[in-house]
């Protein structure tokens, strides 16, 4: 992979993440029925929708992971490789990382232990395995708190720690489940802007967000889920101005996008 010019490589490259006919059901109730969704390198895609629309079910299904016991079907492709039959830890090692909602750090371990990778991620082209110094540079707050237990961290610090741990596994695609929940507005901006920085470095990001207004600011494309189905998909600017989004999530005003 040395001689290929970067542009040719990206043109031929498969999407980082591709989902086809992804379905999940809990005890016979279909919670997710997604026809197709793709993520390219360096792209941030936001998933929005009401409570119970299937946002969390979607990112969990991509990982083949859940704290419940859903029945899954459909295809998950990571970097041109089909991974939906793989156990979760194998998808993680291949570069598919999820920062889950709720409990996302080990409460009884300090920040440094939380960050130490469980397995050394393979050095592959297209994967940047962040070092501890790099994630500390990205989140200086974690460096200050490195001797504190996960359970002693604030909500924002936990999000940073969750993202930092994922980065140290060398993600190809990073899935985030409501990183802004419970955070102060200033922190929401900080966490979301960090995602923009990561995407600029080539990472593909799937961002589940309840805070549609904040999400629109950072995503390239927006997906609206309703009852497990994709209702809308398109560039953030267009979808943000769609009345179905504007009325339900933005108070009918539409969005004034920053250039």
């Amino acid at each position, binding site marked *: 992979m040395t001689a290929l010019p970067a542009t040719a490589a990206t043109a031929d490259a498969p999407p980082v993440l591709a989902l086809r006919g992804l379905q999940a059901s809990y005890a016979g109730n279909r919670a997710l029925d997604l026809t197709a969704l793709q993520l390219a390198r360096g792209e941030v895609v936001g998933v929005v929708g009401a409570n119970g629309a299937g946002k969390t079910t979607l990112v969990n299904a991509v990982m083949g992971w859940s704290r419940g016991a859903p029945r899954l079907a459909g295809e998950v492709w990571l970097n041109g490789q089909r991974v939906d039959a793989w156990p979760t830890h194998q998808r993680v090692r291949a570069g598919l990382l999820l920062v889950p909602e709720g409990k996302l750090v080990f409460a009884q371990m300090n920040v440094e232990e939380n960050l130490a990778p*469980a397995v050394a991620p393979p050095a592959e082209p297209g994967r940047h395995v962040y070092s501890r110094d790099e994630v500390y540079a990205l989140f200086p707050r974690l460096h200050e708190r490195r001797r504190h237990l996960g359970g002693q961290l604030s909500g924002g610090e936990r999000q940073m720690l969750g993202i930092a741990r994922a980065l140290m596994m060398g993600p190809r695609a990073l899935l985030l489940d409501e990183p802004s929940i419970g955070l102060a507005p200033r922190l929401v901006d900080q966490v979301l802007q960090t995602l923009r920085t990561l995407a600029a470095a080539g990472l593909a990001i799937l961002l589940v967000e309840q805070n549609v207004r904040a999400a629109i600011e950072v995503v390239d494309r927006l997906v609206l889920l309703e009852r497990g189905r994709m209702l809308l998909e398109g560039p953030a600017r267009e979808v943000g101005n769609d009345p179905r989004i504007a009325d339900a999530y933005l108070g009918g005003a539409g969005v004034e996008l920053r250039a």
Partner: protein
Amino acid sequence: MNLLQQILNGLVLGHAYALVAIGWTLLLGVARLVNFGHGQMYMLGAFVTWWAVVKAGVPYALALPLAMACGAVLGAAMQRLMLRATFEQNLVSIMIMTLGFGYVIHGAAALVFGSTGQILDTALSRREFALGELWLTGQDLAIVVAAIAVFLGLKWVLDATRVGRLVRMVAEDPKLAQLAGIDVRRVYYGVFAFEGAAVAFAAGMVAPRTPILTSMGFDEVIMTFVVVVFGGIGSVKGSYVAGVALGLFTALFGALVSPAYTTAAAFVVLIALLVLRPGGLGAGSAGGVH
């Protein structure tokens, strides 16, 4: 004089209890599993050691790792069969299954080793040390040293090594551990193999103190249960303290009150403790292994 000898006996017995219980402590702390076949695995470890030393002429120092290897394989095989129930944390099924494994091990051992009592004699158990009027055997001394070494070793592995960190991650939250890239199934296999090897090692060390029978195991599983619960679930330090305390209690109660009621008395203490301090001695930290 007599009291000092009883305290010494109690210390040896206590280290024996702690050593027998260590595998279950880890099992409970990491995988939240119980193993009521623990006593029969102890019996099997004792008989494999006995068979290797007496029948096959293997030196005692080699018979121990042989028994540990058998214990580890047996533990991993049991885990293979219980894996689904483990992931579902179906404790009732696991309790019944491990109880069943215990009976199967007992039956198989009786077929292979017969049902007569045997004596596992080691060079250490024939050697006696006297200090004034106090005495103990070389085997007693070896039990104390081995128990301390195993506990310190396990604590060190858990606190300071990569494997220990993975094990603690799985203990705290197996689901989150999967997202951190850990093959949780392998950790469960490893923990159960450790349980099998540890109890076989304990059997090889402790069994020379008494005659061995294929029908034994009940006392061991009960005492282990008391130690593990008393020590606080998943607490390595706690189960060491609990083992030694239980040994002292058993020896002194046997000497001062009546040896016939020691098991019953141990249970009275356990029940009282659970009422007063439900988390056990090592309580304070919320679950996990430490």
